[in-house]
């Protein structure tokens, strides 16, 4: 590892390297009580502490809800500010399946959208108690989905699971498209005509992009999961999401804004978000960011697109119509899962939920799980 790599790696730990608040040495050593016995680390201590913490948090939440939230003014960018309102009542509690550090688990989200602080993350009665579920071809899962009806963890992202939850799609290392029953009883290679990258599994079939030699997904196809027949919908374009009869593309103006310094292999960024009505074939440019690129985060519960502006400071934008863009939150949110009237969001180490009323973001609640590790929402909260 050279010095540049080392410096870049240290950037990932920039918060840790910033060090504790000044005076830590005095607080730690000055507060040492040499006569005290070290604390017992037992279950009951943990439960009691967590319960107390929960009480404090609920009290804090209640007080904030009573006084209402105030939001700082949004920097001028031509974008609409989001609605200012106190916390909306939400149909909680529920159990939310999440994936953390590649392990599927549940957390309880309780009234007022507070994660239950007294309940440790529970390891599920997993369909794969030995560890992470694997794809039928033996490859490790890149994402997980919890299928509530079957009580099974599936080795794919929620977008790759059919709306009825009965099956999921994936493409293997050779790019062959497979469809697998969620119960794990059937697995079929349905199309090997091209190198496929699954975009979404919808009621009408599997939407996939054909991957070109430089690993860029190109064009959009609809593949019948029963027959394997593929129909080309768009000859080109980088289609990043399909949901509810709408496909989303990220494209670029000319000249294009500068590239992000880092990106994942095959990751698509662009500065123009295009909406394709799959019924009519009509495309509509929805939002153009002249000077910076965006990542597609997902679609929210009202079928509005969520994109993340990659420049710093990062922001989550809700695109609800041509030119109608709302800043929903700051931060580099990276994936979204619509769930009833709410939308779950995740970034590197945080979990959030967006609630909307009348098309406006009313509340974004951040649930900070503390210890590190990538978090993804793995299914709806039940």
């Amino acid at each position, binding site marked *: 590892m050279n010095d540049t790599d*080392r410096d870049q*790696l240290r*950037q*990932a*730990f*920039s*918060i*840790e*390297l910033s*060090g*504790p*608040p000044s005076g*830590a040495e005095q*607080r*730690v*050593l000055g*507060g*040492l009580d*040499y006569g005290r016995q070290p604390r017992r*680390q037992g279950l009951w201590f*943990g439960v009691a*502490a*967590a319960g107390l*913490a929960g009480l404090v*948090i609920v009290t804090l*939440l209640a007080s904030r*809800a009573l006084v*209402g*939230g105030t*939001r700082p003014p949004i920097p001028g960018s031509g974008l609409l500010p989001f609605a200012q309102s106190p916390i909306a009542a939400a149909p909680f509690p529920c159990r939310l399946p999440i994936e953390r550090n*590649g392990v599927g688990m549940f957390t309880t989200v309780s009234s007022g959208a507070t*994660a239950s*602080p*007294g*309940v440790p*993350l529970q390891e599920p009665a997993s369909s794969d108690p030995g560890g992470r579920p694997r794809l039928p071809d033996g490859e490790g899962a890149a994402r997980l989905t919890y299928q509530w009806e079957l009580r099974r963890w599936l080795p794919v992202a929620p977008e790759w699971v059919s709306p009825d939850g009965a099956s999921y799609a994936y493409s293997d290392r050779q790019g062959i498209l497979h469809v697998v029953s969620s119960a794990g009883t059937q697995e079929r290679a349905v199309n090997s005509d091209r190198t496929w990258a699954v975009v979404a599994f919808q009621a009408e079939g599997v939407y996939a992009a054909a991957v070109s030699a430089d690993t*860029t997904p190109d064009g959009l196809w609809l593949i019948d999961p029963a027959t394997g027949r593929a129909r080309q919908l768009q000859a080109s374009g*980088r289609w990043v999401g399909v949901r509810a009869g709408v496909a989303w593309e990220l494209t670029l103006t000319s000249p*294009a804004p500068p*590239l*992000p*310094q880092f*990106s*994942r*292999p095959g990751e698509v960024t*662009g500065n123009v978000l295009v909406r394709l009505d799959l019924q009519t074939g009509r495309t509509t440019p929805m939002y153009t960011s002249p000077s910076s690129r965006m990542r597609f985060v997902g679609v929210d519960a009202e079928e509005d697109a969520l994109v993340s502006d990659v420049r*710093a*400071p990062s922001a989550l934008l809700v695109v609800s119509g041509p030119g109608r863009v709302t800043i929903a*939150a*700051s931060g*580099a949110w990276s994936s979204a899962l619509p769930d009833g009237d709410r939308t779950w969001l995740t*970034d*590197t180490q945080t979990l959030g939920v967006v609630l909307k009323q009348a098309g406006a973001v009313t*509340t974004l*609640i951040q*649930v*900070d799980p503390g*210890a*590190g*590790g990538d978090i993804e929402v793995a299914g709806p909260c039940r």
Partner: protein
Amino acid sequence: MRSHDADAQLIDRAREGDTAAFEALLLPLVRPGCQLAFSMVRDWVEAEDIVQEAALRAWRGLARLRPDTVNLRPWFLTIVANQARSARRRRSFSTIVMGDLTWHPKLAVAIEASDTALDLQRAVGRLRPKQRNLLFLHYCLDLPLDEAGAVLGISAVAAKSRLYRALRAIRPDLQLTEVTP
């Protein structure tokens, strides 16, 4: 920096109950201890609590320390890591309502961070905690691999292997240029 002889003398005095000597030994270890604890629990206040608890355990454990010990750092950081693991097991979720987007320090940091840092942070965040902790100890606290391994309870060879796997896991995730559209 003190010499090993000076540290050995301080350790001897601390064993005999000299709290000032013990605190002199611990003083340079508080900051890295807090950093290590924070990397595991993501909360500075809790990190300081963990280090203080670790200090108390170290004080009570001095009698069990090997007589030839001249460097307290790996031993103390091991206690900190164990304490942080226990704390992490105890806690689950805390909740912050984002009425004010600048209210949460983590968000404020995220806003200031560059896109590059966020991407790299995401790649590192995807590592398993054991791998991430090793990267932090070796590349951020500059602990030699054998010492970092000792803190994590593994051999130097195992630490080297784990480090290799961690770097392999990060590198395919990042590339310097974006795929051409």
